[in-house]
């Protein structure tokens, strides 16, 4: 049920800061420090960046759950590539742990008064691993590749939807022109560059650099053994943040249990834990003696998409009724053991677009029944199932095979629906088939999870009526003239404060229109060797931020003390 799309939080503060060209700090950005957890995991923001002094050296062994498909930053498409490339390629701008945009490979950025042209200046000391400087022509080359129809750059292409042209201003400055002004445009500049000189005269899709990229970051790739491991070492020509470990080894381990055993056996420093392994870790003395559990909330949430084009769900009263039949408080208690938060709209609570005053619809079966009746769904033929105009209220509730939590949520909803005379058949469908149905709008209801790649809260691509399949990924084809107008306005509004007001108004509409059943924002769980310090969590997780895992270090064996 994992759905991977850009989701939303901040961006609101970010424009001003991002374009201001903040200087590289060297140390982590250090917002509100909290104490390191001792016994129980802390749920929430964790910042150990001020603990220390940090020790350099040692090897960090991490896990990838699949083989990277490439190490070409433009061609990256899935999580394993992003996790490796974060160490190797610098982005123009990065998000810090508070989701502020900070200058990284870029020194700063100027926006033209009409909001159509962005002039970015690169850092003068930025060099590639071969000693050549990082130049504006590298940026021009990279952007041209991203927008090239023959290059599958799925991660970055959507950021350049309104792209018009790009030009080199001088050796260190380039300018990108867009056809439309867009309030969240700065998000487009969180991407890495490729060295043009390495791709000259080569087929971009098959260049040797795609397996052995030229680094402009703190580490470089030493070895990539297919289906086994990727090894990094320090880039001798690194500039800026350097990281504390001497080597990083990514082990490619598809099986969660095997990875957990490596963690408790001391052969991995960190691994993400699924719900089953989290329960196991809590009772496992071996885990307790070597490791600590870190839990925090990010911007992901799950929801049940309803096809607003279907006669079953076209009426907002029906969609509200379905939401009121899902006992989300019980889901939080029983499925997530308290480590989840109910969401009332298409953002996680840590997104500034989320208005905490918009209370979720309550679990209220009696009210739901009244809403069904008002919408004309009654059991007229006495078969126990509600019907209207000769159509019974029954549908398939799809879930991606292998999504245990998604299936459990669906079963709970299905059981409640059955009590009020609605039949929902839970059907597990293999991922590729599942997503084809969902993105094609060929479904009645489907359980999905939203994974945030960046904090862009713009709801337009996912909820605007112009984005119904096959044009876009408003999969349930929600269409509301008022919401459409507000979404368009939010995209144009350059004032962060006013934009937040617009998004908060939208949030209320989303709650009341219930275009989908918004479920919960669940905690992320990681197991860490106790010796690993300097952790900073963020709403983008550990890895989507800068310096993120570069701030981690390892306490020397022996005198580790707490935690």
């Amino acid at each position, binding site marked *: 049920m*994992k*759905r*991977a*799309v*850009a989701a939303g939080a901040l961006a609101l503060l970010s424009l001003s800061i991002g374009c201001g060209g903040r200087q590289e700090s060297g140390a982590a950005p250090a917002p509100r420090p909290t104490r390191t957890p001792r016994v129980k995991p802390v749920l929430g923001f964790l910042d150990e960046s001020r603990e220390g002094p940090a020790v350099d050296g040692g090897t960090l062994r991490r896990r990838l*759950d*699949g*083989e990277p*498909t*490439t190490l070409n930053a433009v061609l*990256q*498409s*899935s*999580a*394993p590539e*992003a996790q490796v490339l974060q160490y190797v390629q610098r982005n123009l701008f990065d998000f810090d742990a508070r989701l502020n945009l900070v200058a990284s490979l870029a020194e700063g950025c100027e926006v033209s008064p009409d909001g159509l042209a962005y002039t970015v200046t690169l850092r003068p000391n930025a060099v590639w691993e071969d000693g050549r400087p990082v130049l504006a022509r590298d940026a021009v080359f990279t952007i041209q590749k991203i927008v090239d*129809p*023959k290059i*599958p750059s*799925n*991660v970055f*292409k*959507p950021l350049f939807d309104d792209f018009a042209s790009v030009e080199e201003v001088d050796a260190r400055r380039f300018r990108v022109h867009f056809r439309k002004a867009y309030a969240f445009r700065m998000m487009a500049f969180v991407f890495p560059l490729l060295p043009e000189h390495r791709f000259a005269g080569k087929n971009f*899709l*098959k260049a040797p650099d*795609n397996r052995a990229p030229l680094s402009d970051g703190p580490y470089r790739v030493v070895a990539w*053994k*297919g*289906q*086994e491991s990727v090894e990094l070492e320090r880039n001798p020509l690194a500039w800026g943040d350097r990281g504390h470990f001497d080597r990083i*080894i990514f*082990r*490619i*381990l*598809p*099986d969660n*249990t*095997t990875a957990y*055993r*490596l963690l*408790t*056996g001391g*052969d991995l420093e960190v691994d993400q834990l699924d719900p089953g392994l989290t329960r196991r870790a809590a009772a496992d003395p071996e885990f307790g003696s070597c490791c600590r559990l870190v839990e925090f909330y990010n911007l992901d949430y799950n929801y049940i998409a309803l096809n607003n084009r279907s006669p079953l769900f076209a009426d907002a009263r029906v969609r509200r009724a379905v939401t009121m039949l899902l006992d989300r408080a019980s889901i939080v208690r029983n499925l997530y053991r308290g480590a989840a938060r109910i969401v009332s709209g298409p953002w996680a609570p840590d997104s500034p677009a989320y208005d905490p005053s918009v209370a979720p619809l309550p679990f209220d079966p009696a009210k739901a029944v009244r809403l069904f009746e008002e919408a004309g769904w009654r059991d007229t033929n006495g078969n126990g199932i509600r019907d209207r105009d000769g159509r019974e209220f029954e549908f398939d509730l799809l879930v*991606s095979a*292998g999504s245990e939590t998604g299936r459990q949520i669906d079963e709970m909803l299905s059981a409640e629906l059955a009590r009020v005379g609605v039949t929902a058949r839970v059907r597990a469908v*293999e*991922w*590729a*088939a599942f*997503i*084809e*149905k969902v*993105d094609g709008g060929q479904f009645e209801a489907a359980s999905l999870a939203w*994974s945030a*790649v960046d904090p862009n809260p713009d709801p337009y691509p996912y909820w605007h009526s112009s984005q119904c399949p*096959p*044009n*876009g*990924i408003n999969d349930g084809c929600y269409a509301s003239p008022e919401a459409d107008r507000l979404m368009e306005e939010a995209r144009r509004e350059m004032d962060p404060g006013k934009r937040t007001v617009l998004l908060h108004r939208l949030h209320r509409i989303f709650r009341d229109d219930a275009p989908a059943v918004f479920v919960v924002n669940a905690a992320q769980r990681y197991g860490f060797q106790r010796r690993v310090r300097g952790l900073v969590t963020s709403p983008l997780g550990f890895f989507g931020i800068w310096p993120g895992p570069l701030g981690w270090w390892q306490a020397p064996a022996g005198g580790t003390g707490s935690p």
Partner: protein
Amino acid sequence: MIGYILRRLLLAIPTLFGICVIVFLLLHLAPGSPTAGGPDTLRRSSGRAAEEMRRLYALDRPLPEQFARWIGRVVRLDLGESFVDHRPVSRRIREALPHTLVLNGFALLLAFGLAVPLGVLAGGKPEGVFDRLSGTALFALYSLPTFWAALLLQTLFSVKLRWLPLYGVSADAPGAGLDAVVDRLAHLALPVTCLTYGTLAFVARLVRSGVAEARASDYVLAARARGASRVQALWRHALRNALLPLITLFGLLLPALLSGSVIVERIFAWPGLGRLYFDSILARDYPVIMGLSLVAAVAMLAATLVADIALAAADPRVRDGAVG
């Protein structure tokens, strides 16, 4: 004999073509598309971007044209390029093949090497103590699910006793010479065990019934009458005849050398063909799936052919066309 082999080889061509057509159709008619990406995808392409990808991979062309292009490349021994990483399919297969060959080769040899003596001992005295005990034990083994056995073996030998490595093909620094060999064997031990016990149980029971049947036949009685000892009669006369169905079975099991095992390879993080196949199917990486299916089909046909030839060599009746 040579005519027989040639005839069989010629017959293999239409069979292969048929297999390719069926796999191709199944792939393209099955729901899902390579443009969506796997569940790990950071951003799914949609609308225009998805359209561009379909054009890039020629998925917007009619099916017969796509198939003709593929077959056209295959006859020039080119399996095409992966949609996922744009590397030649043959290269991806070549990287994973040795790992799967080693793993399954050991498993198959071990299974047959243990199954034959076990089967002969059990079949030599049907309903005897050894037969009953080994029968029960083998039946239990046969019904043991691999994923469960794998986790159990890991817990015992890697976590508790720490005798054997938990996963992988070799250690980070395997050393040189004998150390490297020992390291490789240690890494092989658990996955090979997982792949062996099921086949072992199955083959051992087959040998046992063959031997038990042959033991009661007239020619074994005649051998005994001519003064052959019980052991001689069993191993020299009964076993030889019981081996004939084993040759056919071996031929059927041989292609498994290439097909890999998804479950075992995932649990032990073994970089073999099973994982490649599984990942490719999830990502709908058509060229890789077609390439692997073709390799598997060729292996299947070749193994059947080899088994038939071996059978003909071993059994004069097959050779002379009296049977089969």
